């Protein structure tokens, strides 16, 4: 079952294929929390809040990361293995977008 399963009642986020911002992760709490924080941060910054959640192992590894959650913006890895809250995600996005 994926992280963004329709069965998840709370904090369910739609993963948009090809979105500019990607969260690389697995179905663990930290990855889930980071994805929610990034989405909320994008909304607060008035950016398009679409995100793609990438769970495919080969795709994650292709970005050169071996730790999750990681964040990719415009195909550039901007955060590796850090669980971010909304405040931290806003800071990161301000620098990278």
């Amino acid at each position: 079952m994926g992280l963004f399963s329709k069965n998840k009642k709370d904090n369910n986020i739609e993963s948009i294929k090809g979105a500019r911002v990607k969260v690389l992760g697995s179905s663990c709490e930290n990855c889930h929390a980071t994805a929610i924080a990034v989405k909320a941060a994008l909304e607060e910054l008035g950016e398009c809040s679409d995100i793609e959640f990438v769970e495919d192992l080969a795709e994650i590894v292709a970005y050169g990361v071996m730790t999750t959650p990681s964040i990719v913006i415009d195909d550039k890895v901007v955060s590796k293995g850090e669980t971010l809250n909304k405040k931290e995600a806003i800071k990161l996005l301000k620098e990278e977008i």
Partner: protein
Amino acid sequence: MKKIKLYALTGFLGSGKTTILKNLLTNLDGKKVGVLQNEFGKLGIDGEILRKDDDLEMIEINKGSIFCSCLKLSFVEALVELSTKNIEYLFVESSGLADPSNMKEILKATAVASGDVYEFEGAICLVDALNFEEQIADLETVERQLKHCNIAVISKMDLVDEERYESLVEHIRKINPVCRIVKSYNGKIDFDLLAEDLKQFSWAESEETTNTKENKPKTLFITYDKEMEKEKFHKFLESIKDKCYRMKGFFNIEGSWNQVDVVGTTINYEKCESKDSSELVIISKIGPAIIKPIFTEWEAIFGEKPALKN
């Protein structure tokens, strides 16, 4: 460049994977071999048993199944690292509770990171002749391990009769009609198996593993800093063994160090090298509910509280 021959060793807790692996390593003496060992507990008990050889490159991944979403990236990372060690063979000994259904997903990601360096020769699944029927009734993992293997090695054949063997073969065939089935007596297998093309015995397609963080069995540890009385220790193990998938560890028992193994109803003690402290890993069959009986039994037998850790 010659590809590294990669084998996965699967099979339920206590089925004899480490014993078979030790046996394979002896046969590969003089060759550069890698071992990736995976255990559910935080303590690498089996790693302690193996780590004696200079030609051995070893990585341990503990605290869960390497096929679970929380550890599979670490598994890929370890495969990438071992691919740089100039090894000829790599054996992945997965935890007895690991479901290897997604092995292909791991191999695909490894190939993305480090190129086509591994030749996956197949999965060798150990089937415990004594305890298999009980184990498979308990957990889907056991069925998955068999479904995704190329060879089923029926271990502990020296402890069962031919009738039991035939009924095991019948059961295995219902789960995996293709795999090769071989017998193992006293922890030994025919080393020539490694020269065979095991890929021809592939059966199931890759699928999602059943290992998740949510269904991960509870693992606990007891440490003990005194010399243990055998009679009392045995009584304690007897009292909780039906609530455990497995217990194993090292104990200073009446002045001599022993490796202790509890599988099914069997409690085994084997002399071993001295350790820094006595430790027992307990893999619970009943989740955290095992904590209470551990405390009750230990206190009743030893007259003190156990040093129990999560």
